[in-house]
């Protein structure tokens, strides 16, 4: 009888505190609690954005309405939809971003392979310079690049972004090249050599052996390039100009709104909720992409071994 009691006591203790430090129930509960709390803090701005974009003016002013609007007010979205000229702006924006991403993915694959596979003089120096371009702010070189583009007649054209991307100098290109470099280093060289014995030249080996194996790296680089190109506004706005991506259109939101709903007409006041609706619509395509491909994003670093061995 007594032995059974002790046994029960131990069972409860093991359940609560576990055999080791980190497998008891209490420990896990605390971990979950902390993680959920941090998640809430972390996503607070996003929740704020979504909730407030659904509020009408009364809810927006009413201090009693915090998280749950009294009515779901979709009028904000209708307006933001019109102001951003949405279906058309979305497609032109996506088309532009896809072009840039394809170019920079292709070039980074080539360059990453070159750095990973071949021995050539000055390789270490060039690789270090390539990595160093990551920390160089585009603002340092903008004064002369803008002159180059003016001379080439590329100013305010999409080509002004696509050309540097094609030449491996686009936004965050160093990271893409590094990803491919690390990935190609993990593919055994024996595969290349066996193809070489069958008479394939280096480009043939790259195209038919290494590139198919690098599918994860290609997908990851393309996704990151898509997201970062979509989100980049400074360089894009300066060189390619105008409103070619949705975030750039969002920057001119207040002006476009005033043009579409001139002062004096009903609904002319631009309030926070409408602006936030515009923000939500701008990031919505990215959210959709993220939830479809989330594994590729969150496992990117494990899969490419970018942290080194």
């Amino acid at each position, binding site marked *: 009888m007594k032995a059974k009691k002790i046994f029960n006591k131990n069972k409860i203790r093991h359940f609560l505190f576990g055999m080791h430090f980190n497998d008891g129930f209490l420990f896990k509960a605390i971990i979950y609690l902390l993680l959920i709390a941090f998640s809430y803090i972390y996503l607070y701005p996003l929740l704020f954005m979504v909730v407030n974009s659904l509020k009408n003016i009364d809810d927006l002013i009413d201090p009693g309405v915090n998280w749950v609007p009294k009515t779901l007010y979709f009028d904000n979205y209708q307006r933001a939809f019109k102001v951003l000229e949405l279906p058309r702006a979305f497609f032109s924006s996506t088309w532009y971003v896809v072009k840039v991403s394809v170019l920079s993915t292709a070039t980074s694959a080539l360059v990453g392979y070159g750095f990973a596979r071949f021995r050539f003089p000055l390789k270490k120096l060039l690789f270090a310079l390539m990595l160093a371009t990551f920390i160089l702010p585009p603002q340092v070189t903008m*004064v002369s690049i803008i002159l180059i583009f003016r001379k080439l007649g590329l100013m305010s054209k999409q080509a002004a972004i696509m050309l540097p991307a094609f030449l*491996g100098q686009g936004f965050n290109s160093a990271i893409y090249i590094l990803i491919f470099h690390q990935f190609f280093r993990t593919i055994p060289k024996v595969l290349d050599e066996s193809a070489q014995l069958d008479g394939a030249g280096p480009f043939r080996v790259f195209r038919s052996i290494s590139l198919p194996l690098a599918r994860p790296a290609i997908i990851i680089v393309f996704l990151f390039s898509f997201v970062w190109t979509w989100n980049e506004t400074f360089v894009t706005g300066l060189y390619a100009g105008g409103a070619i991506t949705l975030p750039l259109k969002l920057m001119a939101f207040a002006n476009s709104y005033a043009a579409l709903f001139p002062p004096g007409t009903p609904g002319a006041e631009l309030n926070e909720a409408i602006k936030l609706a515009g923000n939500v619509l701008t990031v919505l395509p990215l959210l959709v992409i993220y939830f479809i491909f989330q594994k590729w994003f969150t496992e990117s670093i494990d899969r490419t071994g970018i*942290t080194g061995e």
Partner: protein
Amino acid sequence: MIRNFFRKIGNWIYDFHLKIAPFTAKLSRLFKNNFLFRKEGTQIVFFRKLKLKVTNRRREALTGYLFIFLWLFGFLVFTAYPLLYSFYLSFQTAFFNIRTGIMTDPAGLTNYKNVLSDANLLPLFANYLGKTVLAVPIIIVFAILIAVLINQPIRGKGVFRTIFFLPVVISTGPVLGELILQDATSLPSLSESAAVRSVMNNLPRFVAEPVTLLFDSLLMTLWYAGIPILIFLAGLQKINKEIYEAASVDGASPWDTFWKITLPSIKPLITVNIIYIVVSMSLYVEAGGILDLAKSHMISGTPDNLFWKGYGYAAAIAWIYFLMMVLIMLLFIGLLSIRKRRRSR
């Protein structure tokens, strides 16, 4: 009709081929008995004199350069040359005009002196410095904390990974700006509590201002932890579990194992993350911030404009900013290595 169409195209190609045939023949002869270079067995002969043996190593080097050629060309045209030219411009007064192109005038160090005494820019530089120096340790600690929490044996790791990476996907300049404007990025209870306020009021202004700035956008600052968390997680997963078991057999507490095993093994990743965080924080362009002002100086500058000072001035601003960025990185990396040296003694 379709057959006609293809016949037409075929004829067209044939005609074209006939037309260019003499030319291609000449071209191929040129390559066979070339004066510039031709192949003789395993040797390439340049100018009929200079002989170069084709070795495996040379062939490999050539192939390597062919692969990285696109990048190398781009680097020279769009990074190296602009870098040197903008350094040169920062010592000039330079203005652009559609009719005349760029007009430069040597100015010595005037641009740098003017930037460092600009009443608009100076507080911005101080705030940037203070905010970044404060934010980097906070982000690093937060990222390590979250990574260690997710790495515990719990369910739903994927969900939490997804949550903490989300901001990387959606953080675009205008959206962040709007959220900061609408006060969605501060912890209200923190910035409005009396204790924090009274401390703030008693701090000197050059300390208090960056701190307030940081608190006002604290959540946004934590959003920079998205990628560092993943990097730390990847590092944590590579630590051998047996080391922990051996340590706990020897009586080490979880607290000890964290400081003695976990932290040292992810230390190289801290350096990587510091660089990443400093770069991504510095590249965020705030409306009315330093980078925005540099752009305005560049675009709006004309010789008779007193306020906007043209290309040279913009280049000087950008160079000072870049220098500060590198100094911040070096500061943190230096701090890390000092601790390491002391420990190894």
